[in-house]
């Protein structure tokens, strides 16, 4: 690079690092967020089904006693 190699390569390297971080940060954060939301949703779904099953069991018990 005619003696200017250090300048040129350091400029491109800094750009590569900044661009790389800018791309990775939101992508990784979104992935993490999605996983948390999905876990919370399946936990809620499981809870709803358990509540429904308990409610159904109570109804059946009431009906059989009546």
């Amino acid at each position, binding site marked *: *690079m*005619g*003696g*200017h*190699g250090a*300048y*040129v390569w*350091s*400029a*491109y390297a*800094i*750009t590569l690092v*900044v*661009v790389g971080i*800018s*791309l990775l940060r*939101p*992508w990784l*954060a*979104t992935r993490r*967020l*999605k996983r*948390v*939301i*999905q876990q919370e*949703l399946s936990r809620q779904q499981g809870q709803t089904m358990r509540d429904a099953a308990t409610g159904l069991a109570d109804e059946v018990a009431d009906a059989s006693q009546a």
Partner: protein
Amino acid sequence: MWRIIHQFGSPPWVYRFCDRVIPWLLPLTLLALCAGSVWGLLYAPTDYKQGDSYRIIYIHVPTAVVSLAGYYVMAFAGLVSLVWRIKLADTAMRAAAPIGAAFTAVALVTGAIWGKPTWGAWWVWDARVTSMLILFFLYVGVIALFQAYENKAIAARACAILSLVGTVNIPIIYKSVDWWYSLHQPASIKFTGESAIDSSMLYPLLGMIVTFYALFAVLMMLNLRQLLTEEHAKSSWLGKRLAQ
């Protein structure tokens, strides 16, 4: 036509748009970045005056150009937010700020690295360089201002006002090399008539400018998607979308 504009105010629509565009635009942009860099580093001719240090132009000019355009993106989003009270506009403004800050920083740093062998100085307080530094402070200011308020609706309004007030800086940056005696050279790329730069150097430069615009778009979409995921974490539309 109104229907198209209305869609931009709909978070599910924008989220779907990002999901559809990122998978192909991101790899395409990365490819173009590699191709443009290789072209600029290896295939463009050596400058008779500056030698090879001028090759920094293929990073410096695109990031500087897009940092200016990106400021208008941020300020326009702020304007839409203030006038029409569309929450998505706040989100867009917040998505644009860190990208603009990063691009401005890269322009300043690569400019300093280029300046050392060319002008003999890492930093000069000339009009173009100083006004670009102010641009960087404006971007950082918008980011910091949002964090400063508990009430995020008020925060967004303050940031929108700061963004709009700061737009006066953009024409100043652009014309600084014409209005003041500046170490920084005047524009070589002319929109009418002959550009003061050889085609063999101009074409890779134009290619990199387009590529960095595309990179800005990709980063906007990535940031938007993250912010929307945070904002609508408990919404049913997002839950349904993630369940698919």
